[in-house]
């Protein structure tokens, strides 16, 4: 168990420099320890791989959620711009109607007014 924890601390870079150097010297001199270290490293990488794959799934999920949010925002801004466009068209129509009404009325006034109509004739 002591060896297990020491190897684990070594692999996780938790050993102080002096102890780390001492451990490495032992590994060089002891083939059984070298084997145990490598087996434990492989085990640790296997457990890391389980976690990495879980995180990858989580990232894919987050990516999908993000994509959906972006699409909703784009749709929102699209419908927002449509509303803006309709408002502009409606405002332009009102202005045109007002202008038409104003000029229509003016012509009618000129035609009705004897003073303005005679002046024009002259």
């Amino acid at each position, binding site marked *: 168990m002591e060896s297990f924890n020491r190897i684990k601390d070594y*692999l*996780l*870079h*938790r050993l102080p420099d002096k102890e780390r150097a001492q451990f*490495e010297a032992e*590994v*060089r001199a002891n*083939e059984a320890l*070298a*084997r145990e270290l*490598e*087996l434990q*490293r*492989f*085990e*640790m*990488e*296997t*457990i*890391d*791989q*389980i*976690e*990495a*794959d*879980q*995180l*990858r799934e*989580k*990232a*894919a999920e*987050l*990516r999908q959620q*993000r994509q959906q949010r972006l699409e909703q925002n784009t749709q929102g801004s699209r419908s927002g711009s449509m509303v803006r466009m309709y408002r502009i068209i409606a405002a332009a129509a009102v202005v045109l109607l007002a202008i038409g009404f104003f000029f229509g009325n003016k012509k009618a006034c000129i035609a009705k007014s004897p003073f303005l109509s005679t002046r024009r004739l002259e």
Partner: protein
Amino acid sequence: MNPTYTDQQIITAIQNGAVTRDKVFAYLYDNEGLRNKAFAKITKMIADQEKAEDIFADSLIALVKSVRYNKYKGDSSLSTYFVGICQLQCIRYLQQEQRSKKRERVLNEVLIHRVEEECRIEASFFLDNQRRYEARLTRRVYRKLSDTCRQYFRQKYWQGKKIREMADENEVKSQSVKNTLSRCYKKLREIIVNDPEAMEQIKLNYGKL
């Protein structure tokens, strides 16, 4: 409103495998500032948007792993360090794509050196050590483990849970957790030892420190 985390809080959550770790991961993934900074570098090197997204996610996973392995020393801010990882992941990808081009290799070397300097990062952890054992091999091994073993390993080593907490979560007795963990360890070792390719790779690495 989404919570915000300081660099120290992020590191603590990852190292201690706190409950907040998944939240921290989601926070980092969606953090606009971090994304902008990272993608500014990634898209300079990788044109494909899909691939760029993959590299961003892989870089986050590599960040989590490097913090867990005490590789982040705090010599630069976490975001700068992360951008460095993104660049190294891009280089790794490009190296795989352009193995034969010598000129690319030279350019990559220059870039790696610059990233190491600027981001205070140990490039070898992300480029070489990570590939000591191929993911294909470790994946093959863990897929032979039962779901319970995988779950217990994650709870113990990545979520940092104590035996009692694991017992509560899995609604079993503490002794049962101990026994299961011990059995799972034996099983894991057995699978590795009985996998000729894995053992061949392990033997090649004897004494490589």
